[in-house]
């Protein structure tokens, strides 16, 4: 297929060039425009007064008020001999000239109106897209108590404006790209030139260029396509809805990708540890920030391993349970007819069902209802002799642990990981848990995010970056940008002055 294309491509080009020219009469232009858009009913063709100008557009994509005020009104009583003169009379900000049909159609689909004067070889394209979308709202998926509350919305322009409002720096580069052969979504790569690594920008650009897909509707799909080649369960790049988080990471030398129509920004490279950090950690005192981070790490451990440890202890290693605890445990387990692994899997599955139902229910009330329902049904399950009390506590603890993770995507992974670990624990006890742990360690060591090691700064050890990983030291210590993003300029601010002032 490919070589046939190659053989014929020069010939094709000649043909298209001939056809691609702007027709010289109004009728031909109209026919061509309609034909290329397959005679859709929303094509609009306006003859403007006596000026001899015809305006083509797709009516559903343009702003009607602007169309009348800024385009038709100024020119309707005038007459023109060349298209250049028209331009002077229009009060639209973004006007381009084009002389190829292909481009004309693409712009029409982007919300441009085409101003055509018979006999001219080029047309004017004036951008007056209609604004379909919602206004900016609170961040609802990544809520913070302290810090800006605003979140991205679905408009690319608004999102870039948000970031530009945070970082008023001439070095902030915005690179556009178009993705999807059918959706033709526009998107942008953002980075601070002179800070972000050139090599990484190139890699990211190449990865985006190499994508062959007909349509991308959200940045989360784009993320799956530009991740480092791997079948990993773990998210290798960050998706966030908070502009302040994106800006913070941009200042650390990372790259961000925004896609039109998506309220989530992709940030890369991102390491495993950074998924457990939130913007709020830097907004509070460093002691409190450190406490939060340690809390999340302990929660991670509990969430992944606690149920598995329960299963392992009760199936194989009764000896490790202290005597006092053993009495209560055996009392509450006495009525349960299942082996621990079935008991745990049943309850975990039950909890996952509740969570999923909560997420699918229309309002936030649904979620609260789900959790309350969980507790009620949980108690009933104990009374009915389905599970033991202690397992309910453990499962609740594990569930809470997975919900404190700031990244929703990482939280999902943590919840899914529990199931294989419970099964391993049920078959092989502590050995199974350790086996799962070793596998996870190996797996995480193999991953990379945009070519950077995923387990940084622990391995490869970058001791300078440990100051802002599990713990957070005061700002006077964390003046260095993380080595993960391989920044061109290492220091975020002058360390000596920072020691004096901050």
């Amino acid at each position, binding site marked *: 297929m490919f070589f046939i294309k190659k053989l014929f491509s020069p010939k094709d080009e000649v043909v298209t060039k001939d056809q691609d020219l702007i027709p010289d009469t109004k009728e031909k232009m109209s026919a061509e425009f309609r034909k290329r858009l397959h005679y859709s009913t929303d094509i609009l063709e306006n003859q403007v007064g006596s000026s001899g100008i015809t305006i083509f557009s797709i009516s559903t994509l343009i702003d009607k008020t602007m169309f009348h005020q800024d385009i038709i009104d100024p020119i309707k009583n005038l007459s023109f001999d060349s298209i250049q003169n028209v331009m002077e009379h229009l009060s639209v900000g973004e006007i381009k000239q084009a002389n190829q049909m292909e481009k004309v159609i693409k712009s029409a689909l982007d919300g441009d109106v085409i101003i055509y004067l018979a006999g001219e070889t080029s047309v004017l394209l004036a951008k007056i897209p209609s604004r379909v979308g919602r206004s900016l709202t609170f961040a609802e998926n990544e809520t913070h108590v302290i810090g800006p509350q605003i979140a991205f919305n679905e408009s690319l322009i608004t999102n870039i404006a948000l970031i530009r409002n945070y970082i008023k720096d001439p070095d902030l580069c915005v690179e556009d790209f178009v993705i999807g052969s059918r959706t033709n979504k526009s998107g942008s790569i953002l980075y601070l030139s002179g800070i972000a690594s050139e090599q990484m920008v190139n890699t990211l650009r190449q990865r985006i260029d190499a994508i062959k897909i007909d349509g991308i509707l959200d940045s989360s799909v784009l993320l799956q396509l530009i991740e480092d080649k791997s079948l990993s369960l773990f998210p290798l790049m960050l998706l966030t809805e908070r502009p302040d988080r994106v800006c913070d990471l941009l200042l650390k030398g990372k790259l961000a990708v925004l896609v039109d129509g998506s309220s989530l920004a992709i940030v890369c490279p991102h390491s495993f540890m950074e998924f457990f950090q939130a913007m709020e950690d830097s907004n509070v005192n460093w002691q409190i920030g450190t406490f939060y981070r340690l809390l999340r790490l302990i929660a991670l451990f509990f969430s992944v391993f606690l149920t598995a440890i329960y299963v392992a202890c009760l199936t194989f290693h009764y000896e*490790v*349970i202290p005597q006092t605890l053993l009495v209560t445990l055996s009392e509450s387990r006495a009525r349960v007819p299942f082996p621990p692994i079935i008991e745990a899997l049943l309850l975990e599955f039950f909890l996952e069902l509740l969570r999923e139902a909560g997420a699918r229910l229309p309002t936030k009330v649904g979620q609260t209802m789900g959790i309350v329902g969980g507790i009620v049904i949980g108690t009933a399950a104990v009374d009915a002799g389905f599970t033991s009390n202690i397992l309910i506590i453990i499962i609740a603890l594990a569930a809470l642990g997975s919900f404190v993770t700031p990244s929703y995507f990482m939280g999902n992974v943590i919840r899914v990981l529990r199931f294989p670990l419970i099964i391993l624990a049920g078959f092989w*006890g502590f050995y199974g*848990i350790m*086996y799962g742990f*070793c*596998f996870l360690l190996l797996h995480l060591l193999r991953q990379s995010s945009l070519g950077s090691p995923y387990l940084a700064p622990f*391995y490869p*050890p970058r001791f300078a970056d440990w100051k802002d990983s599990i713990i957070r030291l005061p700002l006077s210590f964390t003046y260095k940008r993380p080595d993960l993003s391989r920044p061109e300029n290492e220091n975020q601010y002058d360390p000596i002055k920072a020691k004096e002032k901050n």
Partner: protein
Amino acid sequence: MKVHYQPKPQSLLSSFLLIFIIQANQVGIGIHGFQRVIFMEAKQDGWISVLVAGFATHIVVFVIIKTLQIYGSTDIYGIHHEVYGKWLGKLFNSLYILYCLWIFLLILKNYIEVLQTWVFPTVPVWLFSFSILLLVIYGVTGGIRMIVGVCFFSIALSLWIFVFIVYPLRYTDFGHLLPVMESSLVPILKGAYKMTLTILGFEILYVIYPYMEKKEKLQKYAHIGVAASNFVYLLLMLLAIGYFSPGQLLSTIWPTLTLFKIVKLPFIERIEYFAVTFWLLIILPNLMLYLWAAVRGVKQSFGISQKKTLWVFATLIFVFSLFINTRIKINRFNDIFASLAFYFTFCYPLVLYAFALLKKKINTYKEQMK
């Protein structure tokens, strides 16, 4: 085959990681039960044997790095080829590869034995060796950077074990150490000789060397690594002599694990159950490094692709692990290996160094003649 081997710059490792590589590879399965074997020879002066063995290790490590420095960036396979010529070099390379596989099998078998004795008496051997081999293969295919990552984490994540030393320390009577130097020189040296199985692992330097950055600093880091594991051995030896009575120590096969038994936390008792399974993480770098070294050796000296040899070796080890299945067989296996390993790791580097120097002298002489 060229002597000089320069890996790609992205697979080079920072030189200070050598501390972790050496320590992770030295500390492994031997640490469970070396105290008894040494105590049998040197009695309460066993700790002097540990010191002597540690000192000898420092010397050998020094010589190994000196040997490697003669050629710049190379490994033992390249040196063999250079020193012994094409065919004899291949023979020696094969021997070294066999040595790596043998020690792999030894670690695996000993660990499975501990697992079976302490935690799962009824689980068959093949299940353990099969599962561990799968894990190791997954690791080795990830490349050397990843293997060293496991070395790093295996040490970093097992530091908490040292906290539990406090428990046996309360019942320790260091009066057991007296009288010092009761044993004469020969038993002490014999004890040091018995340390071989426990202390070896530093010879991985021979293979890992070309992958390290800033080779001039390696001497320092290698010695820090060896010193760190010597410290661990000495500590455990002193603890065992102090904690157990002589008769008790002689009849305890795994004194280190027995020390864990008395640890009692409010929420968990019998830590040794956990410790035994946790040891998987500690032996994992050993297994991966040795298998990687063997696979690299085949690639270096015979040019066979790493993936193929990896699977072939793994299958071989799996099959052999099924045959060595009783305590007596494992013991005999250990003993044969220990005597061979002593010559291979402690004596052979000195010989190789002498040969390498000689060869270099001859070469320069030849060039001068021209």
